[in-house]
């Protein structure tokens, strides 16, 4: 491990890349070489830094000064001033809202956003995601070392159970219990599968974790494999995430080189092999049994359950399927202990949750906060209020399978149980915040269209139900629907929930149910008066 005087990081999320991050990176390389500083300064591209208003960002540590937006032609001056002469080039610093002058953004964030707590995304944007050495310096592989050297598999499972960690994919199933099921199941061979088929609209937390901190997932999967007795694992990454796949393949290669993956890990008897499997564009493959079908080279159609994957999973063997965010918590729990972890969040849902904030707020982006925060807090603190001073009408959680949360529920603590009691769902962590100009019929139509498009077609309630619901919503938006269509919609949504085979169909009726529960008057206005109160819907049928 080489010691460097300074560390320079360039953001490389989609927006940065589009704004010329690659060119800035190349210019930095050239300039650092030109000043003969290459032995003193490390330069790397990191993923999403979580701030989108001034990309591409260049961060210089240890001072933690943030520059942005940086143009290629600024690079020469920046390198000369900051890296060569050691003065902060204030003219290129990213604007820090409410704080003036040369205050480092990260520390500034700590002061202004006291509630944010980074367990899962803590390393993203700070480490070089392509370097295993860098990961090790930042506490990497401590947890695996601890597990392999001083804990039995049963003790690892017990620690995870004690921590109270629950699956972050949306269902909130206790992770430790799942691990125990697989550990107990009998089979010739067991598998660990990481579900990285993140396709919930509005959710990109897993991409950030995979791109920014891939070794963390490798370590977590290796720990899981040790705990349940698996010898092989798959990371199922959606086909659209090219960069994440590249980083994972590199990470696997590096970990194998260092003896932290593959045969006889850390010189122990334990061996674990890991593959990256690319999806090919199907939302349904995020459902765990569909995902397993897809790995086996078949159509991604969900299996009938039970039997569950914990006993009959991949190639009919016991299989542990965990979401990226769930796994990302595991090394930190083993490192710091279950007691440490359960201090965060609420009693029934300990730990943190990563949310992506989108829609009509002033600041969109990604945050990691303790469970139990409220929507009002998120909008006010992290979203910096509604855009243009508009008022908050509703939020849509967890991508398309989440709920529509009306403003009246904005003070409900966001944890699995409180939301369930309020009749809504936390979903996968996307928060689409909508103001009063959003039409609920139009929104529901877009959401249902998504399910119509993505339904695998295996079972009829989902295949036909989503199409019918879409047709009715289209009629409502065009002013050609009748009042009895509302009853049909209600019935369709109930049928979807009760009769569908898998999670996709079961949640496909949620948007319809929610708008009828919370915004029925607005829907009825469309039908009775043939008027869209927000003026969004075309209402083209009115002229006929």
């Amino acid at each position: 491990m080489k010691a460097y005087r300074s560390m320079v990081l360039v953001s490389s999320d989609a927006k940065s890349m589009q704004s010329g991050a690659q060119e800035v990176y190349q210019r930095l390389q050239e300039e650092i070489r030109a000043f003969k500083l290459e032995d003193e300064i490390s330069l790397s591209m990191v993923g999403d830094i979580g701030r989108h208003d001034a990309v591409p960002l260049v961060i210089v540590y240890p001072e933690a000064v943030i520059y942005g937006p940086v143009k290629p032609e600024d690079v020469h001056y920046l390198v000369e001033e900051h890296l060569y002469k050691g003065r902060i080039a204030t003219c290129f610093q990213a604007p820090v809202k409410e704080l003036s002058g040369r205050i480092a953004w990260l520390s500034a964030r700590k002061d202004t956003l006291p509630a944010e707590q980074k367990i899962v995304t803590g390393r993203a944007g700070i480490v070089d995601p392509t370097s295993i050495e860098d990961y090790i310096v930042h506490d990497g592989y401590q947890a695996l070392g601890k597990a392999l050297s001083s804990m039995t598999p049963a003790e690892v499972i017990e620690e995870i159970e004690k921590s109270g960690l629950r699956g972050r994919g949306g269902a909130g199933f206790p992770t430790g219990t799942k691990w125990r099921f697989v550990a107990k199941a009998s089979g010739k061979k067991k598998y660990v599968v990481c579900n990285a088929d993140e396709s919930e609209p509005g959710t990109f937390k897993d991409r950030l974790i995979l791109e920014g901190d891939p070794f963390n997932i490798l370590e977590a999967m290796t720990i899981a494999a040790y705990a349940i007795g698996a010898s092989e694992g798959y990371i199922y990454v959606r086909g659209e995430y090219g960069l994440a796949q590249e980083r994972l393949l590199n990470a696997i290669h590096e970990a194998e080189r260092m003896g932290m993956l593959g045969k006889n890990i850390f010189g122990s008897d334990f061996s674990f092999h890991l593959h990256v499997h690319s999806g090919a564009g199907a939302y349904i493959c995020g459902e765990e049994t569909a995902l397993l079908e897809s790995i086996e080279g078949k159509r991604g159609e969900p299996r009938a359950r039970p039997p569950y994957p914990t006993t009959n999973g991949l190639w009919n063997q016991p299989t542990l399927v965990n979401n990226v965010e769930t796994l990302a918590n595991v090394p930190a729990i083993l490192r710091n202990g279950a007691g440490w972890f359960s201090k965060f969040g609420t009693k029934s849902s300990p730990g943190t949750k990563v949310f992506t904030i989108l829609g009509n707020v002033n600041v969109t982006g990604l945050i990691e906060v303790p469970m139990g925060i409220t929507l009002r807090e998120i909008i006010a603190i992290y979203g910096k209020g509604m855009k243009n001073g508009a008022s908050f009408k509703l939020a849509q959680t967890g991508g398309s399978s989440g709920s529509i949360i009306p403003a009246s529920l904005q003070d409900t603590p966001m944890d699995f149980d409180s939301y369930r009691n309020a009749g809504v769902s936390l979903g996968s962590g996307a928060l689409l915040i909508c103001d009063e100009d959003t039409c609920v019929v139009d929104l529901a139509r877009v959401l249902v269209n998504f399910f119509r498009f993505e339904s695998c077609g295996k079972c009829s309630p989902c295949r036909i139900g989503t199409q019918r619901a879409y047709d009715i919503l289209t009629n409502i938006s065009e002013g050609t629907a009748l009042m009895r269509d509302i009853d049909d919609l209600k019935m369709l949504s109930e049928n979807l929930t009760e009769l569908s085979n898998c999670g996709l169909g079961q949640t496909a009726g949620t948007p319809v149910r929610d708008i009828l529960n919370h915004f029925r008057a607005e829907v009825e206005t469309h039908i009775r008066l043939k008027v869209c109160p927000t003026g969004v819907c075309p209402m083209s049928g009115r002229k006929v």
Partner: protein
Amino acid sequence: MAEDHKKNGKVIVQAVHEAVKRYGTSKDELIPILNEVNRKVGYLPGEALEEISRQMKVPKSQLFSVATFYHMLSTKPRGRHVIQFCESAPCHVAGGREVWNALREELNIQNGETTPDGKWTLITTSCLGVCGVGPVIVIDNDVFGNVTPDQLREILARYK
């Protein structure tokens, strides 16, 4: 014409061979192989599926059912450039519908169609995971975010 077709067939078989060599013939590599051939040839012609079926010892019917299931695989020829338009809620709320209308008008084709000159294919897609910068369109592998209707002409002009 016949010669052309033969040559094309060779290219296809070659692409299949390379993909199989790279990934092996284990069943769990089927989708990666289909993905790779689709990327190289542009779509999955009948010859490709036949060759894959021979090499992997998988029935053609199963290959066809898999190839038609996933959005990223296509059994029909596509245009030189494929435009994917994200139609999920976050992009929709951010002004996606105006972009979608402008896009269809500009290219004069509907969803799933290819322009007569074989240059563009327009498809809608579900969330691409870049919701922070919606509305989003993806042309081949390039992501364009915060797209407005009046930028479209300039973006499309970048492609030959």
